[in-house]
């Protein structure tokens, strides 16, 4: 299993990808049975399922790269908060359907670019995961983008809610592109792109949709979030308490 290219940075990079999928998948699963229309109940469950599926592959792969015998569930359920490497954006509460869709759009647009690049990863397993995941990311970006447009260019109320969601979430997207030595090392090994390189392409994807949605893109502020560095928001602990409780309560049990 590609042992020759394994480095701590490589492992962390894969974990970060896995944690994004895991944590956003967890959030989306909270919608189950509570969406505005039945079709969206199914779409949200479906997207959650795609992300949990990605998380399973990625965490399994990270565990193998790590070589300490941790499987997908040990990684998903038995780490403490600072060891999760997901983007802060993924852990924020769903709030309403508008915020959920704007987040999905901002995130899956980014993910689409990432998987595209990762399809040519020197890590063959990661490349295979990317080839599968890119189709899902495309669908997520399409689905959420359609909603961003409908909500932004819908009623006055939906416009205000969509704009509020964008204002709230936008500052967290700076974290996508924050530079880190992990990315440099991984890029040097041909494993994956430096995320900061994707900023222009990402803006080229999201700006036209936000414009069509008649939404105003907020100015960048100095605010920075640090989830991918292991420093999360106050929301993360509550999410983990719920997600981890079974594995924490029954250590070692098989389910």
């Amino acid at each position, binding site marked *: 299993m590609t042992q020759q290219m394994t480095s701590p940075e490589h492992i962390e990079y894969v974990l970060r990808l896995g944690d994004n999928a895991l944590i956003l998948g*967890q959030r989306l699963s909270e919608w*189950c049975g*509570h969406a505005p229309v039945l079709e969206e109940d*199914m779409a949200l469950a479906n997207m959650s399922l795609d992300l949990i599926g990605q998380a399973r592959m990625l965490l399994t792969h990270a565990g193998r790269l790590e070589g300490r015998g941790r499987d997908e569930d040990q990684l998903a359920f038995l780490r403490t908060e600072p060891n999760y490497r997901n983007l802060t954006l993924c852990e924020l509460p769903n709030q309403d359907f*508008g915020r959920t869709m704007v987040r999905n759009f901002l995130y899956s647009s980014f993910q689409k670019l990432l998987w595209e690049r990762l399809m040519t990863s020197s890590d063959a397993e990661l490349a295979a995961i990317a080839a599968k995941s890119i189709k899902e990311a495309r669908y997520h970006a399409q689905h959420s983008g359609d909603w961003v447009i409908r909500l932004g260019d819908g009623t006055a109320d*939906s416009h205000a809610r969509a704009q509020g969601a964008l204002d709230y979430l936008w500052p967290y997207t700076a974290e996508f592109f924050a530079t880190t030595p992990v990315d440099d090392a991984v890029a040097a090994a041909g494993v994956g792109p430096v995320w900061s390189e994707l900023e222009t392409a990402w803006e080229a994807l999201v700006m036209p949709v936000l414009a069509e949605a008649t939404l105003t893109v907020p100015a960048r502020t100095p605010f920075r979030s640090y989830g991918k560095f292991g420093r999360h928001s106050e929301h993360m602990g509550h999410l983990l308490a719920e997600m981890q409780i079974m594995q924490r309560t*029954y250590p070692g049990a098989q*389910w």
Partner: protein
Amino acid sequence: PAYQAEFDAKIDAGGYIEAKDWMPESYRKTLVRQISQHAHSEIVGMLPEGNWITRAPTLKRKAILLAKVQDEGGHGLYLYAAAETLGVSRDELLDALHSGRAKYSSIFNYPTLTWADIGVVGWLVDGAAIMNQIPLCKCSYGPYARAMVRICKEESFHQRQGYDLLLTMMKGTEEQRDMVQDAVNRWWWPSIMMFGPHDKDSTHSAQSSRWGIKRISNDDLRQKFVDATVEQAKVLGVTMPDPELKWNEARGHYDFGAIDWDEFWNVVDGHGQGNVDRLAARVKAWDDGAWVREAALEYARKHDARDSRAA
């Protein structure tokens, strides 16, 4: 009367009535009631299982549960679509649900208290549902029959997954086995009540049977379910909470204890806070989502208008 004769003949020949065919008003009404009640049950049924998605103990089980709940949403969709062929809109049907006029299967008013409940709901509740539904795959109304074929296929997959979950837990620690037994204790009686009142107390059966909407009697289905399930329980290593349950060689069936119909009717009549909570959750989802539905309509209206101006 000519229409009626044609309808009767088609029914008697075991043929399918389609949406465009003439049908008696009472047939239509009975079907709308039955199909919508079934549809409502699917979407309310997402709630007790949804309760455990965020706490599923492994990623594999989380994925299986998500897929299952998604399937239930899908069943709701097929069934609302089948009901719509009879001239009612999904919104009207949902309004009847939200206002408490329409019923759904009261089994979903029971709470899911531990992870084992997820397995037991799959095994017993889906198991009973399949037993009820298989005859409907050949029911006289075509759109309903076709929806049921698809649903039954998925339900039996869910039942096997539930049973598999329980098998895994039964191979685990004593705590896990106790959890399974406790869940079986809570769900067994409600499951066998899913077949409805005894035949002698059942109101709709004769007419429904004539129409091929209800082909096998409540008691016969219940017996079939008990017979099949008790054998599965043995393999699993759990016991049903019924001291009178035992094989009757003469009948070739399992005998079982008297059903507590007071409990049944209490739950059906909504004297359960489960009913209040489930309905409140559905109503809240619907109300919270109103602005989204309005936005989608308004967007479509605006863009239709623009498109026609452009044309």
